């Protein structure tokens, strides 16, 4: 039995696995032993202690009296937030530039090409510092802010009027989400109907109407609030309204513009991978260039694009950790402060790595699921 190939394979793999396990166990043992013998505190109990430092931007309530764990979550949410908006922006910009690179228009093609070649060949950290430099050095001081209608632009970022918290605004937001859901379902139903009957009911106009009317209805039903908080200069800074910090803007611009260059190449590669015959056939059917792109080429290109796109999304999320260079309080920035106050470097770094790993795996899993859905169905 010992000689059977299957058994041998299992033994080899078990041996390798236990070797790896043993090495990791040894490393962990060694670590704990060394730290203990040098009287360095270990363990994650520090997470419950009072953090005692301030964070400049947050999506949830946080004060210095809260725990390190909460500070960590504030940093994590900041990372996720900037990554999410930058992923959306990079995808849109990348799609436009990628299509632009294949445009029959000479100028558009060359401009898109120049964008891609310049942006993807300059290190991201330099681009971030450049954007941050532009925002903080070239814009006027806050007292002499540039007036853009109701908004103000200065070294301290953009200050916008912002609705004062009221149930009506939330109802409007809910209405918008509901409209999006309805539009999605309606589009699906319309497609099914077209497949069955050959003619589809209109999708665009009803969707737009729902997008306007539903939020409006929600807003009106819940008291039609009209109160806006407007930014006014008080002391050092604008008060009221919503201020988007230059750190966030620089990071958002840097990440999305940089990643868009790579996405543009993926889009271009995806489109080129669709055989010429598909496009010719669509043209023969009388579809316009826009329709050809939207209905024939992009759906097929998507299959090729998803896997490399996933790694760009992962890159963007991980690259957001460069935020620390320009003062945006992301996960790394908050963890660094924690690390320095507690001195528990190994725990703080391990936690950070585990969270980045989890976020990356989640993005990867989501994209794999989508990839599975859009893959070519063999008939």
């Amino acid at each position, binding site marked *: *039995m*010992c*000689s059977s190939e299957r058994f*041998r394979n299992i*033994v080899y793999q078990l*041996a390798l696995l*236990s*070797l790896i396990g*043993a090495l990791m*166990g*040894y490393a962990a*043992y*060694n670590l704990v*032993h*060394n*730290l203990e*013998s*040098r*009287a*360095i*505190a270990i363990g994650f109990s520090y997470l419950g202690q009072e953090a*005692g*430092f*301030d*964070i*400049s931007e947050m999506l949830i309530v946080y004060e*210095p*009296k809260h725990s390190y764990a909460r500070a960590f979550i504030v940093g994590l949410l900041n990372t996720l937030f900037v990554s999410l908006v930058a992923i959306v922006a990079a995808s849109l910009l990348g799609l436009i530039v990628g299509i632009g690179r294949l445009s029959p228009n000479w100028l558009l093609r060359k401009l898109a090409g120049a964008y891609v070649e310049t942006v993807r060949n300059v290190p991201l950290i330099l681009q971030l510092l450049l954007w941050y430099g532009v925002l*903080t*050095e070239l814009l006027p*001081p*806050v*007292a002499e802010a540039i007036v853009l209608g109701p908004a103000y632009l200065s*070294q*301290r970022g953009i200050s916008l009027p912002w609705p004062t918290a009221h149930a009506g605004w939330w109802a409007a937001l809910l209405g918008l989400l509901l409209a999006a859901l309805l539009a999605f379902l309606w589009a699906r139903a319309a497609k099914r109907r077209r497949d069955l009957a050959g003619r589809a009911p209109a999708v665009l106009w009803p969707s737009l109407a729902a997008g306007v009317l539903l939020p409006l209805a929600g807003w009106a039903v819940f008291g039609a609030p009209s109160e806006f908080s407007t930014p006014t200069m*008080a*002391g*050092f*800074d604008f*008060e009221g309204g919503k201020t988007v*910090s*230059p*750190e966030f803007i620089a990071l958002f611009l840097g990440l999305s513009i940089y990643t868009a260059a790579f996405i543009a190449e993926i889009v271009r590669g995806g489109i080129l991978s669709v055989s010429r015959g598909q496009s010719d056939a669509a043209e023969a059917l009388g579809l316009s260039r826009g329709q050809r792109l939207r209905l024939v080429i992009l759906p097929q290109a998507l299959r090729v694009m998803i896997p490399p796109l996933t790694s760009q999304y992962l890159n963007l999320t991980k690259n957001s950790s460069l935020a*620390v*260079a*320009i*003062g945006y*309080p992301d996960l790394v*920035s908050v963890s*660094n*402060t924690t*690390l*320095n*106050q*507690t*001195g528990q*470097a190994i725990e703080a770094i391990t936690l950070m790595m585990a969270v980045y790993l989890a976020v990356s795996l989640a993005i990867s899993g989501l994209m794999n699921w989508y990839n599975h859905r859009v893959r070519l169905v063999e008939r």
Partner: protein
Amino acid sequence: MFNKKPLCRSLAALSLGVAAGSTFAGPTLDAIKQRGTLVCGVHTGLTGFSAPDKSGKYAGIDVDYCKALAAAILGSPDKVKYVPLTAQQRFTALQSGEIDLLSRNTTWNSKRDTTMGSVFPGVWFYDGQAFVINSKKNPKVKKLADLNKASICVETGTTTERNMADYARANKLTFKPVVFEGQEATEKAFQSGRCDAYTTDSSGIAAMLVNLPNKGDYTVLPEIISKEPLAPMLRRNDQEFFAIARWMIYALQQAEESGVTQANVLRMKAESKDPAVQRLTGATAEVGKGLGLDAEWAVRALQAVGNYGESYERNIKPLGLVRGMNALWNKGGLMYPMPLD
């Protein structure tokens, strides 16, 4: 079935691979002597404390301490390898053994003294956290309370962030911190006007201002919000090296107290009848022997960098900082060298 083939037998051998490891961190002093260099963790660039001078060599009061130790232990102040570290790299560098000691304007506090596997041999510089503003842009700010709701640039990895938050809570003020990694990025953001104020140790502010062309535009606010006893930092459980590090501080301060300088140290050793000087220079007592060094240890250190006062004059005075707390105890300061005997 496991005893038929060599492969099966080798399985058992694998389990022996997991052996308990014991790490032997030899005493720092032996390692230094064997290596022939002292590895000193210093600041990446803080004028007066440790920054490359015009000839590209590290200079400053923290660097002088490294030089004095190298002269005492290895016989030459040049046998130092400087490892420039950011605020946040420094503790790991010390803990991991990458450096022999950290001489990098590090605040001595209980957490660092008890939970980080490190110890502080004594205070090398008394400092405190201060705030600086651009008085041209903010002419009305005269005191810290005037900075309520202001944006304040601060470097990560220091005690500064927490001190500021503590002060704000205690005084019912709101500060908006903008946190950067690295002192240069922080200073640059402040100078660009991104923040209304910049906070760090007052020596750090002085070091920044001395390099600015328009330093007249800036005002340091009068409040000092924290105690920052800056001290060298060593790994724990190494009494031998700890004693040398501690008594080096006292020796250089005792030299100032007794009037022993870089220039006159040899003459003082030969001629002085002052018992304190005789013990310091090794003419009579055997302070060096107790430290595991020779009798001349302090003489070599003094020849290398001069006494504490001389080092201060050379490095800190150009920043425009007065001696203040860093004067000797008999001159109204806090520096009180324990007696060498």
